[in-house]
């Protein structure tokens, strides 16, 4: 009898711990996730512009590793940095919101080439990626 009670208590405690863990779990760091798709910003933008519906089905909520040329950088405090990778038309492209983890990185310069990993949330003029982290960066004059 005592043994059964003991097992039940252990099970309940385990369930509570698991529940609390799930409840308080933060979003995973994108840098730790494996990329589902690796693509250039220009190809990604062109594909999305031509087939938004099928692109949504294919890419939304997936981890995308995208490489492109920086056309704009805004909100230069690192807590919420937004980097636009050119989609080949000089105006719109892939908008990458950087994950607010306080990671150390050099704020990229315009026209430098970057590889960014993020979660695709759809297209609204730009393709938008959230929770991004910079995988590699090189400046043009290096």
């Amino acid at each position, binding site marked *: 009898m005592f043994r059964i009670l003991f097992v039940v208590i252990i099970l309940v405690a385990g369930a509570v711990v698991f529940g609390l863990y799930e*409840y*308080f*779990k933060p979003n995973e760091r994108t840098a730790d996730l494996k990329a589902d798709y690796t693509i250039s910003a220009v190809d990604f933008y062109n594909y999305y512009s031509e087939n938004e519906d099928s692109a949504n089905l294919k890419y939304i909520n997936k981890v995308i590793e995208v490489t492109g040329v920086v056309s704009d950088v*805004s909100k230069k405090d690192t807590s919420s940095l937004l980097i636009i990778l050119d989609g080949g038309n000089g105006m719109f492209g892939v*908008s990458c*919101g950087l994950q607010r983890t306080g990671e150390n990185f050099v704020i990229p310069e315009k026209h430098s080439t970057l590889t960014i990993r993020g979660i695709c949330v759809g297209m*609204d*003029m730009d393709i*938008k990626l*959230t929770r991004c982290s910079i995988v590699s960066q090189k400046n043009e004059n290096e």
Partner: protein
Amino acid sequence: MNNPMIKSISIFSLLGLLMSFTFQKTATKYFTRDGVITFYSDAPLEKISGVNNQVNSLINDSSGAIEFTVLVKGFEFQKALMQEHFNENYMESDKYPKAIFKGTITNKETVKWTVDGEYPVTIAGKMTLHGVTKDLTAKGKILVSKGEVSSTSTFNILISDYGISIPSVVKDKVSNSVKIEVAATYKPFK
């Protein structure tokens, strides 16, 4: 009309008329893709907030038209589970991926777009959220600082107005009244 005084006055007034005409015709559009929308739900047992840093917004200074669009899936939360519930149970973001506000600044003539200052505005229009479109009027500010235009507004909505229902088991954790803060800094759009 032979009086040179009258002649010059009429030329000046003609010039003035022409100038005001051209000024009216060259509307400036202001655009941003990095506006921020934050919402707060303060229920007795839980405070929830989500933030979206990739809001598109467009203002036309001559017509006073103002527009915001946001991808619902782009809202970020502190807890992964909140983000999942927000998308799947409440906003149904697969079905309704965008939230849109389209309106006009009702007192646009009081805003001097090229003069630094803080201009209180009232914005009236329609907001589409969760597939439901409702009239919305909000107070806000247009700020012009060193030539840079930005907008801010804070208002409340009832999520039940947008067809979002809160299951009774979580009614102490999710508030029906949600506070929304909007802030955007624009660049002239060519």
